[in-house]
């Protein structure tokens, strides 16, 4: 039975299948090696002053990025205020009111908007929020991040609203509730866990965005006064510090990288946890 042809097919089978295993193992280990390297380097450079102090001038060792941490949070707050409501309501429209053609167009546009490179969003935010006033501002950075939040929120909101069983809607309607009351008091609460997850994931994604902030929020080595001033943020600080020629700045960049990664991964894990806890009916 074991003709050379069969032997060849069997050995090819083994070779190719083991190769796929090697590839999977290789990819996963490379990815985790580099992240482990970040944890190790970042952990070694992280200190209490990183969270409490302002950046020191060039040449002085030490200092921290307190202003960048607060800056990132302020930018995220703006993005949330501008992007989340739009995403939520548009998602409600797609799931509850929309017809066929128009909804398809909106859905498709949202997907395409999601795929627009962040640097292009940055140019757009620059031309509507920086050019007219002729200076960089926190607000402009918030606009850029807010735009990026919208498409992600729309799609996740729609998805989770659709997962709510029709029987819940029918029960509310049978009690005499209007469509809007049904949505606001029955459907949205039932899907709230999922919607919240989607929002958190959207914010986690824009928290690490650098490119759209380079020429909107710019950066700042001091505390930013008000919303009209340029502001520092963790991603932009990592960029400037990593490409600078000073060893101490590199250490700070590693520390900032670790803090940013921790922030992003924790919110991702948190979002998944919320979703698992509040599984839709």
């Amino acid at each position, binding site marked *: 039975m074991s003709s050379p042809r069969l032997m060849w097919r069997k050995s*090819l*089978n083994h070779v*190719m*299948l083991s190769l*796929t*295993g090697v*590839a*999977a193992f290789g*990819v*996963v280990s*490379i*990815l985790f090696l580099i*992240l482990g*390297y*970040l944890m190790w380097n970042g952990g070694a450079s992280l200190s209490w002053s990183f969270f409490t102090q302002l950046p020191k001038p060039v040449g002085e060792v030490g200092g921290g990025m307190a202003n960048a941490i607060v800056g990132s949070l302020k930018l995220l707050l703006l993005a949330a205020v501008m992007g989340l409501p*739009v995403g939520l*309501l*548009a998602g409600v*429209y797609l799931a509850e009111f929309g017809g066929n053609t128009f*909804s398809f167009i*909106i859905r*498709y*546009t*949202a*997907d395409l*908007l999601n*795929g*627009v*490179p962040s*640097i*292009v*969003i*940055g*140019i*757009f935010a620059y*031309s509507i929020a920086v050019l007219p006033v002729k200076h960089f501002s926190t607000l402009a950075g918030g606009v850029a991040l807010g*735009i990026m939040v*919208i498409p992600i929120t729309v799609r996740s909101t729609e998805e989770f609203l659709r997962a709510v069983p029709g029987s819940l809607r029918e029960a509310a309607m049978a*009690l*005499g*509730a*209007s469509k*809007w*009351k049904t*949505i606001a008091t*029955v459907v949205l609460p039932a899907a709230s866990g999922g919607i919240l997850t989607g929002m958190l994931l959207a914010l986690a994604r824009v928290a*690490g965005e*650098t*490119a759209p902030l*380079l*020429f909107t929020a710019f950066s700042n080595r001091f505390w930013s006064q008000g919303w009209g001033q340029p502001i520092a943020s963790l991603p932009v600080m*990592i*960029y400037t510090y*990593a*490409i600078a020629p000073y060893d101490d700045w590199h250490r700070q960049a590693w520390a900032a990288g670790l803090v*940013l*990664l921790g922030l*992003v*991964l924790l919110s991702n*894990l948190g979002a998944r946890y919320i979703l698992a806890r509040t599984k839709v009916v």
Partner: protein
Amino acid sequence: MSAAATTIAHEAPPQSGPRAFIRRLTRGDELAHLITLVFAAGILLLTSMIVYELWINSHLSRTKFGWDFFWTRIWDPNFDNFGAAPFIYGTLVTSAVALIIAVPLGLASAIFLSELAPRKISDGVSFLIDLLAAVPSVIYGLLGIFIVVPLMRTTLGPMLIHSVGNVPYIGALFRGPNYGVGFLTAGIVLAIMVVPYIISVSREVLLTVPREQREAALAMGATRWESTWQVVVPWARTGIMGSIFLALARALGETMAVTMVIGNAARINPSLLGPGDTIASTIANQFTEATGDLYLSALIELGLVLFLITFILNGLARILIVLTERGGGHPS
């Protein structure tokens, strides 16, 4: 929620008159429909505004250079002479390198996860890989600067020059000075970044292939690999193409990680080891220092080009993935 529903049930019947109209509007479905519709249409408006702003703000550059913008190989801010050819070249080359590395690795890993690995391990690994897709690009850039660039300068680069560099034809890609930064380094970093996308989407598409397809192939005497490669993968090929298109769109538009490791030089370098620039990295690098109106306008036109490329690619990728999920991807 039942409390809210019962109050509605006890409400008085609608009256006539203007007050009733306002009440109907403020409580009614029409208003809710209208408000959500406005926000949904807002997405359409926003996207059109992006195109519009890019279009009018690149006006100066478009009228001055016309179509020559795409082939001119000179980018000289001092003499207001701008051509996008070096950056288009850089974008295509880095993305191609990234896909050449990432597609085989990603596809093989996806096959392993969907066909061979036990479901629990597969789900666990996919969860970790999905988390990796959330890592910000500036962090990949940071790792690129401090891991990939030194590796390229001291080990990988010289190795390539001494081995592949002597091969005719393709050897030309691996000659010349080796700085550590350059197209190849950027391509490698991009490959690391897009591999999670390819694995995640391809695995999901492969899992949708009906079990009967595999069983039929095995029953005909095919080996496991033959059933996978000749039956399962062709069935899912449209979706796999979709995942590759998504990865490509991501690689083309990726800014920070590339900017940090590509070396930033506006020239068409025949060697993969040489420094260059992509469309996105040029914008990131030069936008804040663009002094003249024409300079800024040329950078915005670069943004317009990038926008259109990724727009088209993403559109194609979505269509492919939708087609597969509907089952239409299977060869008929």
